[in-house]
């Protein structure tokens, strides 16, 4: 920060795009990403959701600048201060409105996950309202969580870092599944993140992951018959009930959002983003150990609600089976917060197959590039699960030192 021209950290590829931008913003180091889908014959360069994420970053920070090359395959990003929804910086009624385009194929959690990593370090509250024809609140075929899983399986994890989750609120004002061809949705989601901290604590989640004591879930049907909910719940329970009895799955039925029909004559409207899906979260007796599963019907349909329920139950079992204290979907969040938190060594118990994913290894490498220390890995030897204990040393990126650009 003191050097007048800090070196750009160089990355290639479109993988972990949001993760790298978040780390760059948190550590204040500018980055240069090249070779973003250079060989794709149809869609070279940045995808719509990535451009959208850049716009979001621009909205919640002050003084960040980015240059995207003509073809969109190269981008340089100069991070600014994380201001959040500060008055005078584009916030209307203390809320930043972020518009997602209809071409967006990712669920809204694609934006929420990285945004929530920035939020604890923000200067003022991070209140962002996502709207527009691209907001998909359900899980997506592209591998995003549903907002329900995000709220029940990711947000509680912030408690462990001394970031009170009670002050984080995710309001789903309008639900929507993915529109035709998987893009677009027209939901409305508002994130109100009022838990800004000086320095997140690190985490010692290296004990036994406990035992699963209950399963909660949300079945959602948007714009289709509410009986789909009952059918999904029934078939998921068929599989899970023999293993555990404490299962509660809420049924959520909404009308699909009504949007102006651009293809038709002016004034006519159509329903958008219909579909159904199931989100399941297994809670363990150990605090902060959550496993989630999400399955949604593909936009083109053709899958019975019974199958969605079954698949979701199987996915949940698979997720629990992978072991450790943190599931794959939330490992990135937890590990990043540990690495950015206080300068302590934190320990995290992860399943062998959770550590052994490209995402986690990519995160380890990216963190090291941004100046964090290497992780220590060792076997958890108190039982025969084969879990790995990852020791992460924090870099002490707090809110204090971030007041200067």
């Amino acid at each position, binding site marked *: 920060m003191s050097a007048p021209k800090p070196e750009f950290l160089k990355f290639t590829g479109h993988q972990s795009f949001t993760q790298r931008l978040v780390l760059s913003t948190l550590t204040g180091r500018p980055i240069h990403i090249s070779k973003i889908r250079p060989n794709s014959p149809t869609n070279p360069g940045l995808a719509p959701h990535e451009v959208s994420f850049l716009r979001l970053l621009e909205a919640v920070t002050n003084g960040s600048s980015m240059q995207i090359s003509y073809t969109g395959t190269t981008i340089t990003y100069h991070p600014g201060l994380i201001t959040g929804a500060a008055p005078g910086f584009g916030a209307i009624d203390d809320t930043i409105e972020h518009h997602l385009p209809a071409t967006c194929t990712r669920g809204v959690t694609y934006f929420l996950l990285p945004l929530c990593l920035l939020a604890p370090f923000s200067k003022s509250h991070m209140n962002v309202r996502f709207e527009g024809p691209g907001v998909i609140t359900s899980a997506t075929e592209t591998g995003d*969580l549903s907002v329900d899983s995000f709220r029940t399986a990711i947000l509680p994890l912030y408690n462990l870092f001394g970031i009170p989750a009670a002050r984080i609120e995710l309001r789903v004002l309008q639900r929507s599944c993915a529109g035709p061809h998987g893009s677009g949705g027209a939901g409305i989601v508002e994130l109100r993140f009022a838990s800004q901290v000086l320095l997140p604590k690190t985490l010692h989640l290296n004990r036994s*992951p*406990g035992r699963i004591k209950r399963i909660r879930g949300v079945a959602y049907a948007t714009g289709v018959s509410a009986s789909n909910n009952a059918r999904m719940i029934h078939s998921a329970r068929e599989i899970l009930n023999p293993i555990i009895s404490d299962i509660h799955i809420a049924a959520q039925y909404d009308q699909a959002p009504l949007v102006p029909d651009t293809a038709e004559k002016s004034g006519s409207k159509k329903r958008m983003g219909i579909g159904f899906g199931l989100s399941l979260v297994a809670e363990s007796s150990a605090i902060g150990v959550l496993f989630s599963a999400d399955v949604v019907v593909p936009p083109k349909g053709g899958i019975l609600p019974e199958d969605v329920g079954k698949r979701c139950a199987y*996915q949940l079992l698979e997720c*629990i*089976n992978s072991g450790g204290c943190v599931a794959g979907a939330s490992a990135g969040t937890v590990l990043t917060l540990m690495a950015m938190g206080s300068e302590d060594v934190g320990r995290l118990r992860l399943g062998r197959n959770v550590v052994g994913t490209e995402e986690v290894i990519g995160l380890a490498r990216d963190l090291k590039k941004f100046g964090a220390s290497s992780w220590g890995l*060792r076997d958890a030897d108190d039982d025969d699960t*084969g879990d790995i204990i990852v020791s992460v040393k924090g870099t002490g990126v707090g809110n204090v030192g971030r007041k200067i650009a």
Partner: protein
Amino acid sequence: AQMLHSRPSYRTADLARLMYDEVLTADEVLRRWKGEVEAEEENIEDSEDEDFFKKAKHDEDAISEDRSIPQYDYDQLAVKWSVDDNIEQLRQRFTTANLGGGDDD
């Protein structure tokens, strides 16, 4: 889990060593860790071929987006979780397990 332990590759120490080896891609690290790539010599010989096929490979990359939920073959999962042994093994992870030590029971 016990099966994993008996295999010489797939050791934690190996991963710690391989993880920060910038020469390898994350995918290669994993394959090597899991013992799917045995010797390095083969790679050197194949490298020319790999260059030749690079284009096709990159197209595959373009499909691989960041996912929070991995892709599963649900038919396989259904088979896996219809086997009683697997369910019984997983039952240990639930409070309903009959070990006399259920926290909540």
